[in-house]
């Protein structure tokens, strides 16, 4: 019995000591910095890299604001990598950076790239480094067939564009705050030719004055290719010309729709006052003319 009690006591003491050691280690080590980096390709242009920095405070992930991140192309600074740029995170711990014009030639020279995001050592965090692999991709949208959308997704491989198979994509129409699916189907999978065919089922969508709406093909957070977005205007919407005078003449209407009573009062005052001022300026000239005339007459 005594042996059991001794063993339990030893275990408790050991647990307490371990706890103290962990606590002590926590106090001396820096908080972990979680770096999420992703790639975004818009309209087949050079990509953007988005980074989100988070740290754990009271067991909750909290954004790290105002922290500088440096980006390098292919190699890090120590290995002679070219600096893409540096930026600071916003209040939500996020930042986005694009490939500058000065690096476009280097970007085009190779089929794949690596973008390395580096945060420097600070009082709170250790130095971190995260890599994002960039595979060159291309999206095409074919809308030649009426109300049918054919999307093709390709990647640059072995000096030619090869189809991307089994990739999950979405096709929609750009609206004010989000994209609207063009049919009931939310996502599509590319076939062996890297293609997806979707039927455009939305009717009566208001477009611009020519009936143009923006068709959107996109891929979200793909492990290999990142996020892609391709937009193309198509005349499949309803023609919509906003009536600027829809509200009629009101205090809250546009500048060419002031209420008549306001126009009348304002112009009455303006013409009255400025008319008086013009009369007074003329009076000054009259005084001058009288004086000059009198002087000429030798009075």
């Amino acid at each position, binding site marked *: 019995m005594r042996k059991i009690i001794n063993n339990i006591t030893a275990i408790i003491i050991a647990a307490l000591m371990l706890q103290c050691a962990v606590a002590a280690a926590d106090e001396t080590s820096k908080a972990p910095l979680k770096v999420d980096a992703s790639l975004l390709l818009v309209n087949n242009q050079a990509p953007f890299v988005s980074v989100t920095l988070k740290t754990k405070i009271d067991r909750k992930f909290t954004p790290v604001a105002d922290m500088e991140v440096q980006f390098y192309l292919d190699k890090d600074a120590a290995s002679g990598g070219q600096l893409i740029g540096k930026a600071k995170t916003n209040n939500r711990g996020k930042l986005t950076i694009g490939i500058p014009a000065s690096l476009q030639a280097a970007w085009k020279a190779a089929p794949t790239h690596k973008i390395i995001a580096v945060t420097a050592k600070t009082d709170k965090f250790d130095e971190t480094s995260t890599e994002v692999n960039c595979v060159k991709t291309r999206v095409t949208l074919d809308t030649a067939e009426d109300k049918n959308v054919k999307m093709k997704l390709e990647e640059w491989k072995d000096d030619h564009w090869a189809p991307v198979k089994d990739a999950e994509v979405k096709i929609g129409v750009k609206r004010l705050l989000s994209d609207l699916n063009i049919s009931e189907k939310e996502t599509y999978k590319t076939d062996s030719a890297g293609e997806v065919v979707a039927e455009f089922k939305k009717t009566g969508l208001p477009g611009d004055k020519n009936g143009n709406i923006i068709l959107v093909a996109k891929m979200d957070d793909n492990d290999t290719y990142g996020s892609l977005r391709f937009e193309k205007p198509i005349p499949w919407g309803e023609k919509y010309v906003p009536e600027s005078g829809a509200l009629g003449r009101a205090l809250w209407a546009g500048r060419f729709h002031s209420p008549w009573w306001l126009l009348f009062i304002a112009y009455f005052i303006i013409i009255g006052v400025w008319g008086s*001022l013009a009369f007074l300026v003329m009076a000054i000239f009259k005084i001058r003319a009288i004086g000059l005339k009198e002087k000429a007459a030798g009075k």
Partner: protein
Amino acid sequence: MENNKLTADEKLIAELMPRKFNKLGVIWVALLSVICVFGLYAYILQLRYGLVVTGLRDYASWGIYISNFEFFVSISIVAALFTAILRLFNVNWATPITRIAEIIAFSGILFGAIIIIVDMGRPERFYNLFIFGRLQSPILWDVIVICTYLCVSVILLYIPLMPDLKLLIERKPKAVAFLHGIYKFFGSFWTGSKEQEKVANNSVNILCVAMVPVALIVKSVTSWLFATTFRTGWDSNNFGAYFISGAFLVGAGCVVVAMYIYRKYWGLEKYITDMHFDKMGRILVLLALIYGYFNINEYMLPFFKVKKEEEILLNSLFSGSYAVAFWSAIIGGMIIPTVIMLFKNGRKPVPMFICGLLIVTGAWIKRYLIVTPTMLLPFLPMHNVPPAYTHYYPTWQEWAIDIATLAGALLVVTLFTRFFPILPIQELINESHEKDNK
């Protein structure tokens, strides 16, 4: 008799002709110039880096620039009171102070216009107000009335100055060529004939009639900039009358301060007498009581009804973070001067000067209290803004620019007295002749 008259006129002209500054005057002008240059430097910084160098943020997008703007517009309508109203009512005792009121009005509206452009941050976009401005917007009304009042002030200053310009041409032949050129360009055609006097008098009378509504519109419109906005502290039907009464009070206070300084500095005791201070004291008491009445309307009624948002604002003014400033403005800037001026001895030059200073200082603080606390209390608090945005502390650049505009206004008023007669010489001569004829 005729010779005596001539001698008296000559004496009056000699006494009221502008003279060189003495050492004190030179130091004063130099000091104001240095402040203006420093303010200009601060403004260049603001132009270069944007409004981020100020304390203005999403919450308090109006700060001491707008307080200063309100202050300048307030003092500028004083000409409507002393030139227009008193002239229309044939109040002859006010003749020596009309030009003081006119130059204060001109200087006030000029720097009011300047400070509003400073507040814009991007002055090169000012023309957009005219291209894209909506007539429904009080901002556009404000631009129109400020421009109009600036023109009115210039004409009001110029027409009564014509006869004195003629005197300057005759008596100041040794003035520097540029200055003499200005005198000649603007006044050489004045002969003082009856025909000219008739046109000039008619013009001044028309101007006085036009001046009163224009001045009231100017001040009303600047009050409507606030009152047409649905915000705690500004959502008031009382604002037009409240602002106009406050403007008359601070304008008259400025005139008293200027009267005292001009009298003391240029030795004008014979022309700006104790009687003038006494009368000004009576006017100031009346104006302070009217302004006090509108203050009661402005603060007591919301205090009685105690809407939640009003309660927060009033508590901050009455007993919170703005209490010292608020009670300084009410007690120091209104009640104490009123009590002092109720007594005959309180309407002597020195106490009147002190009262004027108290009123003017209180008025500036009051305009700060009208603008800032309300800005920091929106009905819908913003989300995801840094905590610093919910406070407003003017930066040194803002103070430098604000103080520079005040110094600039003082510089204009000061330099005017160096080159032009601060009292209307010809009018005083005419009045003395009329008195003699009676």
